[in-house]
């Protein structure tokens, strides 16, 4: 049975690696988008919104332009790719005995790679390669884990972290898409609507799978529905929660977290995303999902990491 402290570090490791990868993808996709839409200005500030770093950003920068936003997301001490990787590494460094060696070596390599190459990530010419390297390394780490780590408790906690982080990121990406496109019916943005929804899909690597699954042209209704409700796409909220559920079920005493999770799953299953979008209620709905994700996080922390009162009966048994 694994230590609560170690389990917590595994969980955060999963979250931070996922966060690093997602941030890299967001930056990459949006740098590409800039090339198509050089006149549109809102793109960079929306990245700050998606990552929820408005405060931290405002403390360092005044203008939300490409240079500042990219700099912030690459090497800010609290909200950047560099930070996520440092935190991921710190979490493995303190639990090295749990992980396959290759994973640690890969994390360590990435940790050294980022500061050495961050300068080229700041320039548009080198950015694509830099971000691609980061994404690929994160994928490799996930791959090593899948290929060489037993599906034990530690692995399940990593997976829970990864999937909660993913679900959270997906909701943020949709939210920003929705906000940008519903601010003003008549704004110039409308003419780019199709490109922007494409962008939402690409930010979650969902473009290809969406095209295979949804026959119609890319449109807001189907994109939102796909990214929240598709049961099979690995970054859809529904799929992520299903993964979390299956991990919870393998862990000891999962009742409380499972109940909280089921509540969210029922809420999502019973909602009609398309009419919410058309009636303007989607933003609020996504807020609710995000609050629920925070509840699930809180519940699992209490249940498995800080369960000092809950362990007393088990102590009596063991004695």
């Amino acid at each position: 049975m694994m230590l609560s402290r170690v389990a917590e570090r595994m969980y955060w490791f999963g979250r931070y690696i996922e966060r690093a990868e997602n941030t890299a993808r967001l930056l990459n996709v949006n740098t590409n988008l800039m090339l198509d839409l050089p006149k549109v200005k809102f793109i960079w500030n929306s990245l700050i919104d998606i990552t929820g770093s408005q405060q931290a950003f405002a403390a360092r920068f005044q203008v939300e332009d490409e240079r500042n936003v990219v700099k912030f997301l690459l090497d800010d001490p609290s909200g950047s790719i560099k930070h996520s990787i440092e935190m991921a590494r710190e979490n493995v460094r303190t639990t090295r005995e749990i992980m396959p060696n290759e994973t640690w070596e890969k994390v360590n390599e990435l940790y050294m790679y980022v500061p050495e190459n961050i300068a080229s990530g700041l320039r548009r010419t080198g950015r694509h390669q830099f971000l691609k390297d980061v994404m690929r390394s994160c994928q490799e780490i996930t791959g090593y884990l899948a290929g060489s780590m037993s599906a034990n408790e530690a692995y399940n906690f990593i997976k829970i972290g990864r999937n909660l982080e993913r679900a959270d990121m997906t909701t943020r990406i949709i939210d920003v898409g929705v906000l940008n496109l519903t601010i003003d019916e008549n704004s110039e943005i409308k003419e780019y609507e199709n490109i922007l929804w494409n962008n939402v899909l690409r930010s979650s690597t969902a473009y290809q799978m969406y095209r295979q699954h949804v026959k119609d042209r890319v449109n807001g209704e189907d994109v939102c529905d796909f990214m929240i409700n598709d049961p099979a796409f690995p970054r859809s909220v529904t799929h992520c929660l299903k993964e979390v559920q299956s991990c919870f079920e393998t862990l000891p005493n999962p009742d409380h977290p499972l109940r909280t999770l089921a509540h969210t799953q029922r809420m999502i299953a019973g909602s009609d995303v398309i009419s919410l979008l058309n009636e303007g209620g989607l933003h609020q709905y996504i807020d609710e999902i995000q609050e629920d994700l925070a509840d699930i996080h809180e519940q699992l922390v209490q249940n498995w990491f800080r369960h000092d009162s809950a362990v007393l009966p088990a102590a009596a048994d063991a004695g």
Partner: protein
Amino acid sequence: MKLNYKNTAKTFDELFTQAGRARPGLSELSNFLKKESLVSLNQRQSAAEMMIRTMGITFTVYSQGENIDREWPFDIIPRTILKKEWERVQEGLVQRLTALNCFINDVYNDRKIIKDKVVPAALLDSSTNFREECVGITPQFGVWAHICGSDLIRDADGTMYVLEDNLRVPSGVSYMLENRNISKRVLPELFERYNIQPMDNYPTQLFDTLSSISPYPADFPEVAVLTPGIFNSAYFEHSFLAQRMGAELVEGSDLVVGDDDCVYMKTVGGLSRVDVIYRRIDDLFLDPEVFLKESALGVKGLMRAWSKGKVGLANAPGAGVADDKVVYTYVPEMIKYYLGEDPILPNVPSYKCEDKTQRQHVLQNLENLVVKPANESGGYGMYIGPRENKRTTAEMKRRIKANPRNYIAQPIINLSTVPTLCDNAIEPRHVDLRPFILQSDRSFVTAGGLTRVALVKGSLVVNSSQGGGSKDTWIIEEKNP
């Protein structure tokens, strides 16, 4: 490359004789060094350093109030010892640790060695590592020090001496194992040509030793490594050993002692019993109930659990009583007293300042001696005669006179040298050697140990925090002639 290797008559070189020829059985290595180009050797050195970086082999130094994680310094040219010589050293180390364990058990129980006047009673009364709380306890097999790291040095005439026995929380074994991994990758051809004794069975041996002191030896014991945490300079090693043994790496806050006096760890499924703890924190931090009250590293009630036999602790609390520079000077007498044998490995000749005649000699010859405080480790508080000045010498004299029990003095031993890759040349550098000895109902000695090397020319300081590096150590079985 052409070797222009200058070893002097004042030191013993581990690879070359005075005449510049390879020592018997070691010509493969010297031929290799002669044949290889400097470029190739430097490439191999870089490959080794790259491995150290990616594998994250680090040690922590404290500097200006900060912890800095540094990469482990390693030199690719190995230190070599023939198996025949090493087997004798192994016997000597086991003999020594057996006697030391007899001594520790004796001083906490019958104190026969004192009653028989082999060792003065005053020695224990003034020992800072004697733990009153351990009196009357006999751990499993009467063994207190399960893991020992002894430092060996070789004098100019080739004699191997024991410089000290580290019985508290000796470290370095993980670096020994990692050094071997690295040299296997960067010098594969030599491993083909030589018969080099493998050393990677250490974690298994350690696990077996720890398992053997479980209160429930019949069950599959739950073993945990207790670390002070990530900021400790040896954290890398704690994590490494836990991983290699498949044991839990725990911090004090992960453990709790129950009303039944058993030790439990806090797991995701509730509390789970721990049978053996390999503790890597000092005695005084082990249990705030008994020792330092403000210690946040330890576990409340751990001493209670141990003294009632509910958990095995390695090394046992109080084992450090024999890790004292003055007690060290009595080890040859202990071997004779407890085992009735002659010591196989000699001590470095040592003067006890508590003895009047010896003290006089020390005070008169301070410039040519090394003076060590009884209870420091890592070279702290050491006085090295030839390097000191009038002021420090006068200060040392004053200290010895004020507290003679706290000091021993030794002649300066010119540590042996090993060829080392230094900026574009192979030069002799001074080394020591720390093998690791395990003991419970059985004994085990590593095949070789951690060779530490002073990378600065002429320096005798091998500590990694002070410019020291490390080498792989090869115990070589000679081929049949």
